[in-house]
């Protein structure tokens, strides 16, 4: 397909997924003008009413989020006995959910940061809402360790502060690393998201028709006026943050994995955990984008900005990550066999054929086998195949966390300490509630914040490419 002559606007439903080695790909379909980019994105926020489907989705999500907070209240007042947690399974659903949501959180930073470092232009269509999923997933993730400590009003004990007992936290403890890593990640992802949004908030300020909107967006946009001198500093800062955030993504998921890998439990004590958690995190994050992008662009009419090519690329990365994850699973089984350790071998057999066999098989099939359909272009281009694949990957990743956390420790070295884990209705309620919270925040974001980074899309349009005058060329 070679209709990539950039000066020509292509039809909205133009197929831009083809490869063309001469022309750069078309990343905005329909009339590719600056004005249209602004209008397409701003009208979502400026419309007096959201699209009809938004309301039922929002009330359902908000209801579930309400359930989450009600259950948190119930748990705090009653005690951690409301969960299925027991001895030896002290972690249960809260930590499964924590690791699961932290994983999802990683794709936003990854899409933004790594693709920015690699100068991948297609990131501009999806980076804003990918970053939003990061922030909201981190919010969901952060809740669980907070309530899992049992007495959340003492959560500040994690911080090194001078206290009357005269002691300090143990800096060798992965749990302290975890708190620090996730706290850092939350701060960084919020700052990165907000900083990236300032020029777009200024756009909304300048388009505001009411005093109220003008004031709100005026304050949020910090008086941004698009100065070239500011852009230079701004660009540099975003690049520096992207570089740091990329390392942070690797760092946080590796740190989360040390919660397990540093222990002696068979099934946890593995050197492959840091890369497995990192790849798994990236995988689940891209799967989230794959799952969310279709409804977002359909509901808000953004097919011109989030084009088939963007989703094709997301699907390809999902497939790539799924393949690495699957490979690591196989390697884990091989290592267990090859180690010759009875306990190690037993744990893996128990994964597959023990009481939680369904979780292990779901993990292998959902994460390893089902995403393989994305090898076919037809599947990547069909929304009712690609989006459900994303959902399967999410379910698979949740099961992976279940297998790691539940299956391993309920059957460790001593049969006398084995104990079955049965989740309670509070566990299920909180899991559903965390999805409610995520979607509530996500729907509010779609309605009130620019879903697509307008200024970044404008910067990659063909007409934004300038030829430098000779005088400037000689200088450098």
């Amino acid at each position: 397909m070679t209709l990539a002559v950039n000066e020509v606007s292509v039809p909205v439903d133009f197929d831009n997924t083809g490869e063309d080695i001469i022309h750069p790909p078309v990343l905005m379909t329909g009339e590719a003008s600056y004005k249209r980019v602004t209008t397409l994105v701003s009208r979502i926020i400026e419309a007096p009413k959201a699209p009809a489907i938004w309301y039922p989705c929002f009330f359902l999500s908000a209801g579930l989020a309400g359930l989450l907070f009600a259950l948190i209240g119930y748990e705090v007042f009653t005690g951690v006995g409301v969960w299925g947690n027991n001895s030896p399974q002290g972690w249960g659903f809260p930590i499964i959910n924590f690791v699961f949501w932290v994983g999802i959180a990683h794709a936003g930073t990854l899409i933004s940061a790594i693709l920015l470092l690699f100068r991948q232009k297609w990131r501009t269509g999806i980076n804003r809402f990918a970053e939003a999923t990061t922030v909201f997933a981190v919010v969901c993730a952060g809740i669980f360790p907070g309530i899992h400590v049992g007495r959340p009003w003492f959560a500040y004990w994690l911080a090194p502060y001078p206290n009357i007992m005269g002691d300090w936290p143990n800096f060798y403890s992965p749990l302290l690393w975890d708190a620090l890593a996730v706290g850092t990640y939350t701060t960084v992802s919020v700052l990165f998201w907000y900083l990236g949004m300032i020029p777009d908030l200024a756009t909304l300020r300048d388009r505001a028709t009411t005093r109220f909107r003008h004031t709100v967006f005026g304050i949020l946009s910090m008086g941004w006026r698009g100065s070239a001198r500011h852009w230079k500093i701004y660009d540099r800062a975003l690049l520096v943050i992207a570089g740091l955030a990329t390392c942070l993504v690797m760092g946080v998921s590796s740190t989360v994995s040390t919660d397990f890998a540093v222990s002696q439990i068979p099934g946890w004590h593995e050197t492959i955990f840091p890369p497995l958690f990192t790849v798994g995190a990236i995988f689940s994050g891209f799967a989230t984008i794959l799952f969310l992008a279709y409804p977002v662009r359909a509901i808000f009419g953004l097919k011109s900005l989030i084009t088939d090519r963007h989703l094709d690329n997301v699907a390809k990365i999902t497939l790539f990550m799924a393949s690495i994850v699957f490979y690591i699973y196989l390697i884990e089984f091989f290592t267990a066999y090859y180690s010759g350790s009875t306990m190690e071998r037993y744990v893996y057999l128990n994964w597959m054929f023990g009481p939680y066999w369904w979780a292990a098989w779901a993990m292998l099939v959902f994460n390893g086998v089902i995403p393989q359909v994305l090898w076919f272009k037809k599947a990547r281009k069909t929304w009712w195949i690609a989006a459900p694949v994303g959902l399967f990957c999410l379910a698979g990743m949740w099961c992976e966390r279940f297998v790691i956390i539940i299956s391993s420790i309920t059957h460790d070295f001593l049969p006398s300490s084995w104990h079955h884990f049965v989740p309670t209705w509070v566990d299920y309620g909180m899991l559903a509630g965390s999805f409610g919270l995520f979607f509530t925040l996500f729907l509010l974001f779609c309605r009130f914040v620019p879903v697509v980074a307008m200024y970044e899309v404008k910067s990659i349009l063909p007409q934004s490419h300038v030829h430098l005058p000779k005088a400037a060329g000689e200088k450098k």
Partner: protein
Amino acid sequence: MTTIATSSSSAGSEHAGLFGVLAEFDGPQSLVDAAANIRTAGYRRWDCYTPFPIHGLDKVMAIPRSILPMVVAGAAASGAIGALALAWFCNAYDYPMIFSGKPYWGLPAHTAVAFPALVLSGVVTSFMCVFVFCALPRFHHPLFEMPQFRRVTDDGFFLAIEATDPCFSPVNTAELLRSLGAVSVELVKD
């Protein structure tokens, strides 16, 4: 006459009540071409205003490299060192305790503490630096009074030369900008 002579030595009061002149261009290319000419003409206090960062415009305008990465590197290094020092103070100096037979202070394990501290201080510093170096937030600016300037965040490409520039003259500067293909040139009140 004497008063005028003294005041003209301090740049700016010569054109009291005037911020400068604002020219609009029809696209990135004409703005970049005009910027190259303005720079050659010897202007110093001027700026371009665009809806998105135009790649190469900084070179044309000869904007110096930002010291931001250096500041961030310093902050990041201090963050990491600070975290290592904190771990040492807490676990090895103030209340020494043996955990799992490990040394009081060990770089391999404490890297996991130093690294997030490095990233955190680096990112927070870059974030702050944007506002410090850009002198933002600044909620009012003379350019905001210009109705056409509202398009700077949409599809407007502007170039403004400030009255404090030694080469500035309300008539000649405006004329120069018009000759460079500006679609509109207007004086901006301070």
